[in-house]
């Protein structure tokens, strides 16, 4: 049964974000704040970079603030002014990505002013931005969220999100696929990957896809065919999932932005599950110098090796 999700704290959170942004910009603590602002469509929001304290009133937080803004701080995005400290508004899931980027020495904690958001969930991409947040319209990633309250931020509004246990859709879908035969799984993914048009939205929104030049954009040697055909598409999605294994923070942006509705986060969740089982690794709020695939233990399992 569809139930409403309480988002009443979001207006108080909005005011708190505005006040904090106003303060840090006017005191000169930061040169810019990356946050969300309303857009034209009813209920919609889009990322915004403000540099003047007088613009702080533009910032909002609502159930349509879906983006992971951490992507704007990576090497891949050179457009944000990077003179001095930057303020950034993050949900718990986004914060995990920031933490991952710090672990990979892409960002320095002291160069960030992190404004954490107590979050009750955001809308799934399949619904219009003016829809109310319910147990039906909530984004799949929020169903398995364990990070409603970000930790280790410079500022978090005091409001407490009301949370409820929801059915975990990724876990159920992964279990369903695992129970199939290899041929059936291949058929499932083949159909999904065939839809891919190589717009690379999944790569471009990913905070961890910060390579100056993507392997898949290289042609000497060409490891992955660039044309949007089943062969190159499949290779691309396997390479993407592998390069994110042990790094993905679970913000599910890749899946949200896919214009062809390919369930990309299933691959990421599956890899996260395996790495948790194999090496007890999980993305979290604590900065770790090494990920599971950039470290090793002499006693690692090798039962699959002859």
């Amino acid at each position, binding site marked *: 049964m569809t139930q409403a999700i309480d988002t009443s704290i979001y207006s108080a959170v909005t005011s708190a974000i505005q006040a904090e942004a106003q303060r840090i910009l006017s005191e000169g603590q930061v040169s810019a704040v990356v946050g969300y602002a309303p*857009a*034209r*469509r*009813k209920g*919609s*929001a*889009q*990322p*915004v*970079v403000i540099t003047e304290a007088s613009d702080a009133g533009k910032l909002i937080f609502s159930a349509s603030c879906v*983006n992971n803004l951490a*992507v*704007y701080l990576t090497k891949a*995005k*050179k*457009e*944000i002014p990077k003179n001095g400290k930057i303020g950034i508004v993050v949900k718990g899931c986004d914060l995990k990505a920031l933490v991952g980027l710090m672990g990979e020495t892409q960002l320095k904690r002291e160069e960030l002013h992190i404004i954490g958001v107590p979050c009750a969930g955001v809308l799934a991409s399949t619904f*219009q931005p*003016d829809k109310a947040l319910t147990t039906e319209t909530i984004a799949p990633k929020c169903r398995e969220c364990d990070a409603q309250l970000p930790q280790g931020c410079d500022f978090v509004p005091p409001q407490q999100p009301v949370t409820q246990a929801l059915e975990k859709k990724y876990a159920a879908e992964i279990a369903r696929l695992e129970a199939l035969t290899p041929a059936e799984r291949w058929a499932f993914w083949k*159909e*999904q990957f*065939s*839809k891919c*048009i*190589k*717009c*690379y*939205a999944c*790569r*471009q*929104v990913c905070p961890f896809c910060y390579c100056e030049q993507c392997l898949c*954009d290289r042609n000497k040697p060409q490891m992955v*065919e*660039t*044309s*949007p*055909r089943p062969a190159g598409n499949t290779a691309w999605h396997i390479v993407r999932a592998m390069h994110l294994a042990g790094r993905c923070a679970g913000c599910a*942006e890749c899946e*949200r*932005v896919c*214009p*062809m*509705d390919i369930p990309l986060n299933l691959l990421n969740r599956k890899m996260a599950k395996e790495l948790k089982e194999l090496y007890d690794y999980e993305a979290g709020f604590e900065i770790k110098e090494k990920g599971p695939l950039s470290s090793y233990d002499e006693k690692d399992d090798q039962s699959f090796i002859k």
Partner: protein
Amino acid sequence: MQNFISEQNLNTLLDKLIAAGKRVVAPRLTAGTVLYEPLQKAEQMVHDELPRRSAKETFFPVCEDIMSYEKEGQQVRLTDIDPNSFPETILVGVRPCDAAAVPVLDAVFSWDYRDEFFLKRRDKTTIIGLACTTADDACFCTALGLSPADPKGSDLFLTPVEGGGYTCETFTEKGEQFIASHGSFFSGQSDAKTLPLAQPQTDKFDLKKVKAWLDEHFEDPAWDSIATRCVGCGACAFVCPACHCFDIVDEGTEKKGKRRKSWDACGFWKFTHHASGHNPRDQQPKRYRNRIMHKFKYYDDKFGQTLCTGCGRCIRICPVGIDIAAIVEEISKK
């Protein structure tokens, strides 16, 4: 005058065409997403949803082979694809915003070079448009002077009526021929009232003013505030009914392979990246500027047309919520 076709007759007609080996393309659910795809049965057609990708791919596929090569010793054998081999196609259930883009694309594909891949497919395709009964707040065809019942680009145009079925009007010889050769499926009944059509809520753009501003503001700080948020994917261009840039690549081994043409997008960093390493559009706002310029200035300069039909797809799918309707409106008020 035969200007009515019942729901059932339309299905029977399409099934008959499919059985006769014709390629019938229509909105259809494909792996969970509605796309313009060849039908196997008429009932697969989806009537009330805007497909995620536009109908342009019927003429301009996501990826197509244009040539193959094979090397044997010192001999190299090249084989062209014969555009005459493209099958006759009936494109049905096309949304007015998709159909309207086709004549716009004709201009560029038959300009200084006649692109036979596009034009031959175009020749062999009959477009049957379908009026929209629903719209959302991303739709803005009315802002560009089109409408949910605009037959631009359609050979034949269907408007749903109360109690089921469609009134149909022909606009080209192809459309008339289609009715003439399948006359038994159509009837003269025309007194039924059409269903209430969609009403997208956007005021009409002053495109002259927009162009006048674009003419003067290639360099302007506004581009930064509009597009700093752009992450540089190609989603907007790929779902657009009018974007038509493509890339040509050779794929295969040194012995054997194919030359392929596939969609490209000006939002990509790689799009203008020179072999020297220099990139004239080195920042994302410059790339996004090209998208707006091409649609509302360059295409107008060259062909006197606008490269946008207001389908709203780019607005719905933009990962960072860039809203072309809001941007154009903002420009028109400058």
